[in-house]
């Protein structure tokens, strides 16, 4: 049975690293893996979605509505947008951060009120402040690795497998802060 993990964020928040770590861990576990990303224009501050699928033999690289076993959301509005993709009983991990899209900035639209409450009600989402955890780890850019930590906790893949994948993906000078960020996310995860 193919499992589906979806990562949603605002272009520039660094999901490419998150999906690379995840992909490496899953190959190590012996799965067939497909990771689908979108490059180019949408990376300029637009909605960005990455699909990670694994299992015995994965066909489509895309996750469709109602199929995600897990959604990792880097931002609240993007989490709301991803709701229809969540499978019944699927898990949602959300970073408590709001980034206004341009239509909100220009006043043409409003940022939805009560996003966090709705996510908890509708999807039993686990919301964490990944930005402050990343800052505690000494690297505000490590929001992605904090969230990977929280996700790791929700899987039955051993802790060391994740830290090995981080060691082989993250450049030496950011390694320590990223390992710390991972640990904080892992502790914060359920």
């Amino acid at each position, binding site marked *: 049975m193919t499992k589906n993990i979806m990562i949603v964020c605002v*272009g520039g928040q660094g999901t490419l690293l998150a999906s690379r770590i995840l992909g490496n861990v899953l190959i190590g576990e012996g799965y067939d893996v*497909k990771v689908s990303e*979108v490059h180019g224009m949408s990376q300029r501050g637009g909605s960005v979605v990455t699909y990670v699928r694994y299992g015995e033999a994965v066909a489509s*690289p895309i996750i469709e509505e109602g199929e995600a076993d897990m959604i990792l959301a880097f931002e609240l509005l993007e989490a709301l*947008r991803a709701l229809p993709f*969540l499978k019944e009983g699927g898990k949602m991990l959300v970073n408590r951060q709001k980034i206004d*899209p*341009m239509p909100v900035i220009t006043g043409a639209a*409003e940022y939805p009120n009560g996003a966090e409450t*709705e996510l908890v009600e509708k999807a039993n989402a686990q919301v964490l402040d990944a930005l402050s955890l990343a800052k505690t780890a000494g690297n505000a850019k490590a929001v992605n690795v904090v969230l990977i930590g929280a996700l790791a906790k929700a899987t039955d893949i051993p802790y060391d497998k994740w830290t090995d994948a981080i060691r082989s993906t993250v450049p030496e000078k950011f390694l320590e802060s990223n390992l710390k960020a991972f640990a904080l996310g892992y502790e914060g995860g359920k």
Partner: protein
Amino acid sequence: MKKLLLGNAAVARGAYEAGVRVVSSYPGTPSTEITESMVPYSEVNLEWAPNEKVAAEVAIGAAIAGARSMSCMKHVGMNVMADPLFTVRYTGVTGGLVFCVADDPGMHSSQNEQDSRHYAKASKTVMLEPSDSAECKAFTKAAFDLSEEYDTPVLLRLSTRVSHSQSLVEEEPRADIPVRPYEKNIQKHVMMPAAARGRHVVVEEGQAKLAEFAETTSFNRREDNASDIGVITSGAAYQYAKEALGNQVGYFKLGMVYPLPTQALLDFAKDYKTVYVIEELDPFIEEHCRAIGMKVRGKECFSLLGEYTAAQIKKAVLGTEPVKTVKSESTLPPRPPVMCAGCPHRATFYVLKKLGLTVSGDIGCYTLGAVAPLASVDSTICMGASVSAAFGMAKAQGPEFNKKLVSVIGDSTFMHSGITGLIDIVYNKGANTVIILDNSITGMTGHQDNPTTGFTIRREPTRQVDLEALCHAVGVDRVSVCDPFDLKAFEALVKQEVAADEPSVIIAQHPCALLKTVKLSGRCVITDACKNCKACMKLGCPAISVRDGKVEIDASQCNGCGLCVGVCPFNAIKKED
């Protein structure tokens, strides 16, 4: 050990393993990473060319001179290199020649949704289409052999989901394929009418042989299942169909999409009651099936637009309703791409909007100058059209209109095909103003070097094209350089240049904010002097927004470019270190 590789990286690996020696490309999403992934392969002579036509011609020359060669491009890039494509089919190759073309169904990062398969038919070449990274590598390798065996360039068609999906690939060693000796052969290589007539005969003979090959090639395969339904498909659509229909249908999976087999497809159709053709974009395979007398279901069930999903296919073929999903109660504002905080293009468009100019736009990050609130760009067609189309606008509307008209074009795009438009303006006595947005890099595709940056693809220093000298050399006397962040000077300069009765070029020079060499520091903060006039909101900066009626600058997004400091009429924004 299998590795997780992007489809594009797998194409690069396949070419490397096939012994490719020369690769020349121009970047374009979703094809860029093919060429970028070859940087570590030191055996390969690798380059970014100024445009796809030049890139293809470099590869063609290398192939005629005996080396295995490749050129990679996005779908619209194939339009640019179509001229040599059609004729190199006549000359044939000596070393294997492969052209990779990446289509963009759904237009994630493109200005149109064209289907490049038509080029294979029109140029009478061969086209392979892989459906995952393992096939990307295998098909690329095989493409070089096929090219040499049939003496033709081979096209490799990718699409966004194949190019930008990672799946498992087994790496193998590089084959040692020596460069073949160069032989002068006027009848084969000089395409003047007398020789070309002879070569056209050879092309048609070759196509007949390739059509035979299509009947039996292992690029195409049947996956039969006990079912009444058969599906003919290829590329990404094959993966969606497999996801949707699993073993409930039989498949004819096409890896070679041109030429298409005839008898093999007719035989497949005999074994299934209902046959569907599932292909994204145009009914390319479907029309072939109908032409050979098959009864198939195709575009009456599936869209001509965008990417397919497994859910759509399930619904169309099996009648399965999509699963019920949870949705937010709120109206969710869209999140379109925007120019980054600190982007120099924002300064340029702020001034152009303020002056109320008509802006003939081009392809690059700065196409986002059409997005609210700046909404400054009036038209965008293709690479280079900002310059030539503005000349046409001036011809249509006259000299007064031209005094309120500018072209905006990036440094790389100007090298690609803007310079020819500028020559037209000079030659035909135009008086247009062209603004070259020189941010020292090819931005949108993710920071590739180009002839104006002074570095090669492998970051070796090289002779840098001097934009000022170049514009002077083609006959533009009024060439000026200005940093658009110097808002007052830039505004005065634009006013002065559009008013001139002769052609002018303004080089708006400021590096991309995302470049690693650019050290932006500090941040902008709003002080008590703020009257909440919202003049800064006109910039469309992602770091500035209104919360509870008050303007705020988000410290985590601001990189201290200081543009807002300059536009505030009350000096209420200060830059802090």
